C-alpha cells in the first residue's frame, strides 16, 4: 500500500457497485474497484512483470480451495498478493474455473497494493452476490450517500444504527429482550441478518411498535432522519 499516492488517480479507480441478492433485489451500494481498471492503471504507471503460481490446487481434502500467489514487479517495488477461490466463494458457473478466479483475485490484490487502492476489487468478493458495475453518474443516482433525498420505497437503504437501537428499545418495553428480541426482528423482517433490513421497513416497524407501546406515531422516521 502506498498512502502517499496520487489521490485523484486513485479516485478514478473506485466505482460504486450495486450488490444484489439472488432474487435480484438491491442489497447495497459499495465502493469497489475493477480488476480491468487496476490493470490498465498499472500499465500506464509502468509494469515490469506480473507472474502467478498456484500455491494450492482445489482438491476434495482441502474443501476444493484453490490458492494462487501473484508477484507484481514495478518501478517502485515488488508487490505480492494471495487469492483463493472455492465453490462457496464463487458463483455456480465459475466453479469449474476455481484456479482462474483465484489467480484474478491474487493479481487484483497485488495491483491494488501497488496502486495504493484500499477498496477491494469486485473480483475479490467472496459473498457470491451478483454484481453490476455502474458508471459514476449512474451510481450517484443509486447511492444513498450521494443522491439527493433517495426514495426509500424504491431503493435499498439499510437501517441506521439509531433505528436498530430504537427497535431493541421498543421491544424491551414489551418485555422482549436480548436474543429473543433479535429473533423477533429477524422473523418480523423475514431476513437472516439485520443488516438486510431497509431504513423504510425499520421506520414502519418502529412506528408500529411505538403505537403498540402507547407512544403515538412518527418517531420511526424521525430516527431515520436524525441519524441518516
Amino acid at each position, binding site marked *: *500500500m*502506498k*498512502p*502517499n499516492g496520487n*489521490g485523484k488517480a486513485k479516485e478514478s479507480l473506485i466505482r460504486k457497485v450495486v450488490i444484489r441478492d439472488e432474487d435480484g433485489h438491491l442489497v447495497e451500494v459499495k*465502493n469497489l474497484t475493477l480488476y480491468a481498471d487496476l490493470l490498465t492503471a498499472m500499465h500506464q504507471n509502468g509494469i515490469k512483470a506480473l507472474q502467478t503460481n498456484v500455491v494450492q490446487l482445489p482438491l476434495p481434502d482441502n474443501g476444493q480451495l484453490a490458492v494462487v500467489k501473484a508477484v507484481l514487479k514495478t518501478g517502485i517495488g515488488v508487490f505480492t498478493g494471495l487469492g483463493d477461490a472455492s465453490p462457496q466463494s464463487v458463483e455456480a458457473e465459475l466453479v469449474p474455473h476455481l484456479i482462474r478466479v483465484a489467480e484474478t483475485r491474487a493479481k487484483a490484490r497485488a495491483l491494488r*497494493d501497488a496502486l495504493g487502492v*484500499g*477498496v477491494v476489487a469486485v473480483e475479490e468478493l467472496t459473498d457470491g452476490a451478483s454484481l453490476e458495475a455502474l458508471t459514476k453518474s449512474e451510481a450517484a443516482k443509486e447511492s444513498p450517500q450521494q443522491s439527493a433525498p433517495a426514495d426509500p420505497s424504491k431503493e435499498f437503504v439499510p437501517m441506521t*444504527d439509531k433505528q*436498530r*437501537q430504537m*427497535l*431493541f*428499545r421498543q*421491544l*424491551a*418495553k414489551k418485555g422482549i*429482550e*436480548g*436474543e429473543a*428480541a*433479535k429473533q423477533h426482528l429477524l422473523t418480523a423482517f423475514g431476513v437472516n441478518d*439485520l*443488516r438486510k433490513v431497509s431504513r423504510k421497513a425499520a421506520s414502519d416497524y418502529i412506528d408500529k411498535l411505538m403505537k403498540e407501546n402507547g407512544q403515538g406515531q412518527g418517531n420511526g422516521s424521525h430516527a431515520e432522519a436524525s441519524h441518516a
Partner: protein
Amino acid sequence: MPDYLSVSQITLYLNCSLHYYFRYIEEREPERHFAALAFGKAIHSALASFHESLKDGKPLPVEEFQRLFRADWAAETTEPLYYANSDTPESLLELGQTLLAEYAQVCRFEVVEAEHRFEVPLCDPDTGEVLCDKPLVGIYDLVTPEGIVEFKTAKSVPDAGQLARHLQLSAYAYAFSFKERRMPTLMFVHLLKLKKPRVEMTAVVRENKHLQFFTRCALAVARGIEANIFAPNPGWGCANCEYARVCGEWP
C-alpha cells in the same frame, strides 16, 4: 478526506497516523469490531437518555435506565464482536448494568444538554486569527451550567500527568470557551470496569496555555493530513486496532 477536524480524528492521528489513514482517508471497512468500543457506545447512549430524562425533570428509575442499556447492548451485539481478556456478552451486560446503577446514585448534575454537538473555527485563542479552513467538531457528552462532563469506560483513571495533557479535555475547553467566552469547569466521569465496578469523578482544570497547546496540535494534524503524511506507530494501540492485518502488509 473529511472537510472538518474532529477531536477523535486529532487524537487518532496523533496516536497512529496510518490508523487514521485507513479509517478516514481510505474509509476501510474494519477487519473486526471490538466489544470494548461497542460497550462504550451502549453505555453512552443509555447515559444520553438518562441525562435527557434529568433535563426533562422526569428522572428515569434505575430499572428503566438499566433496561435501556440492555436494549442498546443487544442492538450492539447483533454483529460479531471481538472480546478481549475474559469478557463475554453476558459479563459486559452485567457490568454495564452495575455501573449505570452506581452512576444513577451518585449523579447530581444539572443537565443543560446531553450529547451536544459543537462546531467552532480553529483559531489562535489569543489573537482570534483563524488557523485552519476546517472547523473543529465534536460532541459533548453532557453540558452543565458550569461546563462539560465527559464519560469514559476504562479500567483505571488516568494519572495527574495524563490528565494535565489530555487533549480531548483541552479541545472541549477550547470549543466551550470559544462560544461562551469563559473557561468551563471540566469533569471526567470514569465508569471503571473492575472486579468491583465503581464510578469515579475527577475535576480537571484548563487554562489558556492548554488551549494554545491544543490548537498547535490540531494545526499540526491538519497540516500532516494535508501533506499526506501517514506512518504506522506500532505500540500499545495496535492491540485494539481494527486494521492490524492490512497494517502488517503495509506499505
